[in-house]
């Protein structure tokens, strides 16, 4: 067989010296240096130096420096936030995935629900905050609701789009091979729309990390959002920034894990594999 196969994993080009790791750290280093220079030029300003934030981060994680209300609170707060993020995300996915499939494939359901959803979609999650506090009380339930709401729409919309844009040719192929119309859904629609649903889940989880902080800023005792809010009230800006950094890293790692999972499960898809 002389025909070329472009991307068999066995036939990768030999390793070259790779400059990308260097490329990736240029911007963070420049930002960090700018920040440091700024604080060095204006000592005693409102913005703490990177070193102060580093110390605050250490104390948040391990204690032994300040021994105040924030010491050693990193892990409990991170766990509180992460459990809300994943709990609400799972709930949102459990509703949005089946609902999206129904809306995508059944005209009746689509006609019934789509207008409502299109009107609800542009309402930002933050605008729901007052209402959610009335409905769920001040506390973690309200935060949970906001997170679920925030990740619901990207999952739903991507699922609808994915199940609607299955190539018609694949239905024909399946039918001429003996798949009955009733079996087309599990045999064709479901596998064909997995990459689209996966994109929705990834976006939804990313948004959950954004929303959690907003959700925890009002009347919640635990979590990274609450920690940042408390620190703000005490003018502990170094803790605010440390909290921001933790959220950024946690969200990034969470996304990375999902991405790797997608690579494994969707190896067949040129976009994911």
């Amino acid at each position, binding site marked *: 067989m002389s025909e*070329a196969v472009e*991307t068999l994993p066995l036939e990768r080009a030999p390793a070259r010296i790779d400059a990308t790791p260097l490329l990736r750290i240029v911007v963070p280093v420049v930002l960090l240096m700018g920040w440091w220079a700024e604080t060095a030029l204006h000592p005693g300003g409102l913005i703490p130096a990177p070193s102060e934030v580093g110390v605050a981060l250490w104390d948040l994680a391990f204690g032994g420096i300040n021994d105040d209300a924030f010491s050693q609170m990193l892990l409990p707060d991170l766990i509180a936030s992460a459990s809300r993020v994943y709990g609400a995300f799972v709930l949102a996915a459990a509703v949005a995935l089946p609902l999206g499939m129904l809306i995508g494939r059944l005209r009746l359901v689509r006609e019934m629900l789509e207008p409502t959803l299109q009107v609800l979609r542009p309402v930002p999650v933050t605008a729901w905050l007052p209402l959610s506090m009335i409905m769920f009380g001040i506390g973690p339930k309200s935060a949970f609701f906001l997170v679920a709401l925030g990740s619901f729409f990207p999952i739903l919309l991507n699922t609808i789009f994915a199940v609607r844009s299955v190539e018609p040719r694949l239905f*024909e*192929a399946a039918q001429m*091979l003996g798949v009955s119309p009733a079996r087309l859904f599990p045999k064709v629609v479901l596998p064909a729309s997995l990459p689209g649903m996966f994109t929705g889940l990834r976006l939804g989880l990313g948004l959950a990390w954004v929303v959690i902080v907003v959700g925890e800023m009002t009347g919640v005792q635990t979590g990274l959002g609450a920690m940042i809010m408390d620190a703000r009230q005490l003018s502990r800006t170094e803790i605010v920034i440390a909290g921001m950094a933790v959220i950024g890293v946690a969200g990034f790692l969470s996304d990375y894990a999902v991405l790797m999972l997608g690579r494994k499960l969707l190896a067949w*898809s040129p976009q994911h594999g």
Partner: protein
Amino acid sequence: MIPPVLSAINAGKIYPGGIEALRNANLTIAPGEFVCLIGASGCGKSTLLRMIAGFETVTSGQIIVRGKEVTGPGPDRGMVFQDYGLFPWLTIRKNIAFGPIARGKSKAEAMATADRFVSMMGLDRFADSYPHQLSGGMKQRVAIGRVLANDARMALMDEPFGALDAMTRERLQEELLTIWRATGLSVVFVTHSLEEAIYLADRVVVMSPGPGRIVAEERITLERPRDVSSPQFNDIRRHLAALLHADHAREAA
């Protein structure tokens, strides 16, 4: 006389928009026969093929496959599409096993069948690759293999080699003929290439547009393998080209 595997009787198609894609098509195909449909763009070749496959309904007349009127797609009529239509989420082996599994064979049996056709189509090296990792020619081998693995009695092929380069195309024509001889499959093959039609077919059916209809049939009795540069081959080509062009001339007039 052996009953035909397929007969189209005054088959016609008017699409919902009102376009008459096919009028009064009459065509019978004997078991094991290789028939090519040729004609200008828009003359209803795909429409006829898709009606035989059961993807399009017949709006007048009938299409009968082995004694039964066609009411929908079925595994006895395997289709090979120009754009392959492989399942991107399945490996090559599983793409070929898809049909047997859909028809209720056990996983083990389906996989054994698939392995047989993977080898037959020269795809061993790619058995565990995904379709996007294959060249066009390889993909079309898979598409043919899955139809064969599904015990189709008839292969419906809509410009299957139209998107391939000349070398690959010639090789696949050769392989298709070998398989056809070995299996006794009936083949309806749509092409735009007169040469391809004469090279492959027992019978070439000439169609013409506006509305689409069958205007001529030519039995090709040249011994296989056929020599495309032989005088006899050229005579047939000239004759069929005249039929096709007569039609264009009428159109232009």
